[in-house]
């Protein structure tokens, strides 16, 4: 039997994602829920690029998201750049922050995670500082309502989600990804195999930062008026981590499934009955840790199904 071409699986996932979110607004009127679902799917996938393929867990992942949101908003406010260019530069701003934070990789395990969290809080406190009110709006937030365009920002977020998923598929199936997987399992043996682990890890980190920065930019465009807490709240990191883990990190479809299912659950009862949501959400996490530590995708990998 002929082996299917390597791009077929990723291609099908990308086409399915694009089709679902292109058609969904016609079937479900609350486009805001769909937009936020895409945002968390992109963030879970972006986090997966780092955590799923290198094992470094960035608790402060929201820092890149907030950086992208503010960089985009400031460019829209102070320059005449098209919004889409501002979103792209928001992604670039997150990459620059990622480069500055590169030395955090001297740390490992929880030390890296906590240092990353601290870095995100530093960015938040700078942006939300009263002294920067003339530039960032300080604690009073920022407004770019003159460029508010829900459909264009929706399409942009979909494009970012597709880009994040294409990157995850590349990480999963490419020579580069083979090196990442080896490094994740044993960095010294990977080095002995010839893998430049510093370079590979940095690329994964910057790709992950770029996705969060781009998502932050598109999110800011869609909100158009927001306080700093809205794009720097730790809950964004926590959701991205839990959603990715629930679906299964290190895979392409896991974070997408995890984010879609859990965010749908959140949108369903999280706002109307938050007490039940918290209860069930906690229970779900306990069950996940106990019975499915490798996420939903492991239901298939346990049966030797080659999960993308």
């Amino acid at each position, binding site marked *: 039997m002929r082996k299917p071409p390597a791009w077929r699986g990723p291609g099908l996932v990308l086409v399915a994602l694009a089709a679902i979110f292109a058609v969904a607004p016609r079937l479900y009127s609350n486009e805001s829920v769909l937009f936020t679902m895409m945002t968390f799917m992109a963030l879970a996938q972006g986090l997966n690029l780092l955590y799923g393929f290198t094992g470094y867990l960035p608790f402060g992942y929201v820092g890149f998201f907030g950086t992208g949101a503010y960089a985009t908003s400031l460019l829209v406010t102070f320059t005449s750049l098209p919004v889409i260019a501002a979103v792209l530069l928001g992604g670039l701003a997150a990459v620059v922050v990622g480069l500055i934070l590169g030395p955090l990789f001297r740390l490992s395990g929880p030390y890296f995670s906590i240092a990353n969290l601290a870095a995100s809080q530093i960015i938040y406190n700078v942006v939300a500082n009263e002294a920067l009110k003339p530039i960032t709006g300080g604690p009073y937030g920022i407004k770019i309502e003159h460029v508010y365009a829900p459909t264009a920002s929706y399409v942009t977020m979909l494009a970012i989600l597709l880009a994040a998923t294409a990157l995850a598929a590349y990480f999963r199936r490419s*020579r580069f990804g*083979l*090196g990442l*997987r*080896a490094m994740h*399992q*044993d960095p*010294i*043996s*990977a*080095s*002995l*195999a*010839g*893998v*430049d*682990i*510093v370079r590979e890890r940095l690329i994964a980190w910057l790709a992950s930062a770029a996705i969060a920065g781009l998502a932050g930019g598109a999110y800011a465009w869609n909100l158009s008026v927001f306080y700093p807490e809205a794009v720097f709240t730790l809950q964004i990191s926590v959701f991205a981590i839990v959603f990715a883990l629930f679906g299964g990190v290190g895979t392409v479809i896991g974070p997408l499934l995890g984010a879609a299912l859990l965010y749908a659950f959140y949108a369903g009862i999280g706002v109307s009955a938050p007490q039940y949501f918290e209860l069930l959400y906690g229970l779900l996490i306990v069950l996940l840790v106990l019975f499915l530590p490798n996420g939903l995708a492991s239901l298939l990998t346990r049966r030797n199904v080659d999960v993308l």
Partner: protein
Amino acid sequence: MSSEPLLRLENVGKRFGGMTVLHEQSFSVSPGEILGLVGPNGSGKTTTINVISGVHPPDEGRVLFEGREIQGLPIFRIARLGINRSFQVPKCFRGMRVRENVEVAATFARRGAVDIDAILAETGLASHADDIAGSLTVNQQKMLDLARALATNPRLLLVDEIGAGLNPAELGGIATLLRGLAARGIALIVVEHLLDFLNRVTDRVIVLGAGRMLFEGSLAAASKDPDVVAAFIGG
């Protein structure tokens, strides 16, 4: 066998904190030669291998490979130059398949094409090619370490206690394999406690004691050297 040394250590020293674990080590290895490294536990055998392979850069002295200083280079650069190793406690990619373990090295080492099937056959892992590496026995994982190293087309191979836990037949197979590698021009440094095994692969050994080189010469002569005897049994 060429007389030009492939690897030369010049006054190499290594400290961990206040403790000096290698003192002024100087020796060389030529292409196709097998050098045995013996000594009691804690004598610095594995540290010597760690220093050569870049896992722990030396604090003093020079490590020259084909005349070029390599101390301080990152591990992957040293591997791409043609130095590789196996580990006493195997360090394979446990969640990956056996073939993938070897493929990583064949892909990233950039040292020319290698025949992965031939390497798996040579190391006795052909029938396990599709197994998850973590499911192999410890001895098989040691062979997988060796297979991963061979997939980088090494010119110098550092083998750390590969014989521990093997039965006589398996030891015979490993001895034949190591001699075969040397016959192909690969230089080997073999760390081993099993002196009978070492005797089957080489006649040149360096004996270490407390990080110092106590003796260099044949294994037979080493057993009569008073410093060596003192290091092993006290005195």
